[in-house]
């Protein structure tokens, strides 16, 4: 396999490191010389990324595999293989460096998720999402910590060294649902929008809780004891971390929006601003131990409507493609490294602890979801059914964030680090492999509603719009400021603040020039696939011509154009006029609705 050969290359070259050019007497001019150290670092990084990309290609070329096994599983297995290979060759397999993970690999994925977050479903369900994220994670962490501690005390002496605080720390590490894993698995099962946004939103927002709990318990473990005042400070810390993170994100988001106003003459670097401001938001939040993920999401969400109104269409495409590319590569690398690190890392296997962790993880998730849904359903318009609850509970996958947090634990303060690491890896493997692979057949078995495949027809769009305005109006008549009222107000303020008329016309003209791009914009939130090929076929020339002919025929039916049979030049002109207008109109309309929709 060429992949394996690629891997032999750096090792081969690495062994040549020792070659010295110190024969100063008879020094012939070196026509060819090898100096690997010079490029070692970038070379190895590029090689890893190349490996990841080639694997992605290969994965999709083998249709049988991709239908059954989610991509993340295959990647972990590959990582295991690569790690095994490296170990067999006598080298030390690299471990997923937490620094690398948190600073380089995670941000693109989160930014991609945040920038293309479907705002409407998110906002409509924000109460539910927050409940699951905050209360669910808290419940999981405490339940697991206490239960593990209790179970450890009951067992033999080997586990007696595990004290309550360490257990709670472990609980907080392993209880957070991971956005990377959720994205990777849910993207392939095309579940309906509500469930997708619930699980995904939860995985994003629970970062604040995880950060606080992790630092809290780490501090306590270090110190050895905790007082009531500390607990109170912990609660305060949670609010600071989450709200602070969001604020930092918003600040940078507004900065980016403001900057994008002036980029009319330097279009080429527009995407750079988006990326840089977002990354700075993430890093700035991390400086103060605030939630970097929430900062990144807030930045993306705030920035998007303003930036998109101001930047050129090409820059928009660039941003979209770059984000998708980076996040895709990052995700692949993360899973591969996870596999490699499993082979590499020091392991301390303890049957009781690991199996207990696994069982308690599942149990706490199920209990948490069921219990919280019971409370949430009292306040929801559209209740969550049992099937929905099952999917939400089953979709609570753990991933690389848990692993990195466990890895970050310092060995002196936490003697159980190896044990924890092993347990975390087991949980991750279980959730990704077992739950990831079985969720697709389960979704089919339970007949859970899938994502709406077809795009809205023009009529559905019209009536949906109509409905929105109607609901807002009725809310106004009723006199209470509900959901629709605030959305409407927000939309109006957005319009008055930013989008100038000539900018609108410019965008519309550009879009009119290419019908295809309009269709793309209507569904810009799709994970790594930008457009299925069927779309391109839709707008092939022959189909367009056929549609045009059909349209002409239909137009005459209800527009009371006298049915003069063809061949008359006047009629021909009228036809092209009509269909040109309708075509133009549908493009404009589509673009219009896109603006209206959010």
């Amino acid at each position, binding site marked *: 396999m060429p992949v394996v050969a690629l891997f032999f290359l750096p090792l081969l070259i690495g062994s040549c490191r020792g070659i010295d050019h110190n024969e100063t007497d008879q020094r012939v001019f070196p026509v060819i010389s090898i100096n690997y150290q010079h490029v070692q670092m970038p070379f190895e990084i590029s090689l890893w990324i190349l490996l990841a990309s080639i694997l992605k290609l290969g994965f999709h070329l083998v249709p049988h595999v991709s239908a059954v096994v989610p991509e993340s599983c295959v990647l972990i297995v590959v990582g295991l293989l690569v790690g095994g290979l490296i170990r067999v060759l006598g080298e030390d397999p690299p471990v997923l460096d937490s620094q690398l993970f948190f600073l380089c690999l995670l941000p693109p994925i989160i930014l991609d998720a945040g920038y293309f977050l479907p705002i409407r479903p998110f906002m409509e369900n924000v109460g539910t999402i927050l409940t699951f994220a905050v209360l669910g994670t808290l419940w999981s962490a405490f339940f697991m910590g206490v239960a593990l501690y209790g179970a450890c005390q009951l067992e033999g002496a080997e586990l007696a060294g595990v004290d309550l605080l360490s257990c709670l720390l472990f609980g907080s590490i392993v209880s957070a649902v991971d956005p990377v894993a959720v994205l990777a698995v849910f993207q392939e099962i095309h579940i309906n929008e509500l469930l997708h946004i619930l699980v995904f939103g939860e995985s994003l927002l629970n970062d604040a809780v995880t950060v606080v709990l992790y630092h809290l318990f780490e501090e306590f473990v270090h110190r050895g004891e905790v007082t009531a005042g500390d607990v109170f400070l912990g609660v305060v810390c949670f609010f600071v971390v989450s709200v602070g993170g969001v604020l930092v994100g918003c600040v940078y988001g507004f900065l980016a929006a403001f900057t994008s106003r002036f980029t009319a003459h330097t279009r080429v670097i527009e995407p750079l601003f988006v990326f840089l401001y977002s990354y700075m938001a993430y890093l700035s939040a991390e400086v103060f131990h605030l939630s970097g993920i929430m900062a990144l999401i807030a930045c993306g969400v705030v920035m998007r409507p303003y930036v998109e109104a101001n930047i050129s269409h090409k820059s928009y495409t660039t941003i979209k493609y770059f984000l998708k590319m980076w996040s895709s590569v990052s995700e692949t690398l993360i899973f591969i490294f996870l596999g490699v690190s499993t082979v590499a890392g020091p392991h301390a296997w303890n049957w009781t602890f690991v199996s207990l962790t696994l069982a308690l993880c599942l149990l706490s998730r199920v209990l948490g979801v069921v219990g919280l849904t019971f409370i949430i359903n009292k306040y929801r318009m559209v209740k969550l059914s049992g099937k929905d609850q099952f999917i939400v509970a089953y979709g609570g996958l753990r991933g690389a964030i848990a692993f990195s947090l466990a890895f970050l634990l310092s060995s002196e303060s936490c003697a159980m680090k190896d044990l924890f690491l092993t347990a975390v890896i087991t949980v991750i493997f279980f959730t990704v492999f077992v739950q990831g692979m079985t969720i697709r057949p389960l979704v089919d078995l339970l007949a859970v509603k899938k994502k709406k495949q077809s795009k809205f027809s023009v009529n*559905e769009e019209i009536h949906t719009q109509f409905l929105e305005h109607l*609901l807002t109006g009725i809310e106004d*008549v*009723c006199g209470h400021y*509900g959901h629709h009222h605030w959305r409407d107000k927000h939309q109006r303020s957005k319009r008055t603040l930013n989008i100038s008329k000539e900018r609108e016309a410019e965008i519309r003209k550009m879009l009119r020039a290419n019908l295809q791009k309009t269709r793309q914009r209507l569904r810009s939130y799709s994970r790594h696939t930008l457009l299925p090929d069927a779309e391109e076929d839709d707008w092939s020339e022959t189909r367009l011509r056929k549609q045009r002919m059909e349209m002409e025929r239909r137009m005459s039916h209800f527009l009371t154009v006298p*049915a003069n049979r063809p061949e008359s030049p006047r009629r021909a002109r009228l036809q092209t006029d009509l269909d040109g*207008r*309708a075509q133009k109109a549908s493009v404009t309309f589509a673009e219009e609705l896109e603006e209206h929709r959010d």
Partner: protein
Amino acid sequence: MGSFQSLPDDHQYRTLSQKTGFSLEQIGILHNRFKQLSQNEDTLRRDDLKTIQDLESNPIRSQIIEAFFDKRNFQKDATGSVQEIGFEEFLTVMSYFRAPAHQITEEQREEIRRAKLRFLFNMHDTDNDGTITLEEYRHVVEELLSRSGALGRETAKGIADAAMLEVASITVGPMAPDEFYEGITFEQFLKILKGVEIETRMHIRFLNMDTTVLCK
């Protein structure tokens, strides 16, 4: 939340509650609102609704107001429109926006869906002939898109044409060259909106707590 002179007795509330499905507290709150809008009179007129400030910027304002005075929405099999309505009619119109109960059968769900779609249909079918003609549809589209301002009448017309075309192709299928498409009937309307979950989307949250103090 002022005190008003004549408090309707509980019995009246109960019959209304049975008829429309609202809870007693919700009816109380809506009654307060009714009194506030009608300036403590027993009937509501169009002008009273026109005074609502937030409604000004709504593109389909006139249609919403009309819907309250449309006899077809009073569930009494009458047609035409009235000049003023009482609290019962107000509540009946509001009841179209209740969320369906959690545990209902398929037939009930279908019933609710039909009722809500009928309400929407009546809003479009202004001349009450049972079909939405091209003119009426054009009117709807123009109203909707008049928000952005820059959209001309030509484009709106084109969009309405395209929309009608789509309805024709979905509902009637291929037509003979001399057939004439009259307009969208209610059954066709149901068909084209099959993909939209009206029964869950067309609802607003009716509170059990009075917030009429908060609005001007």
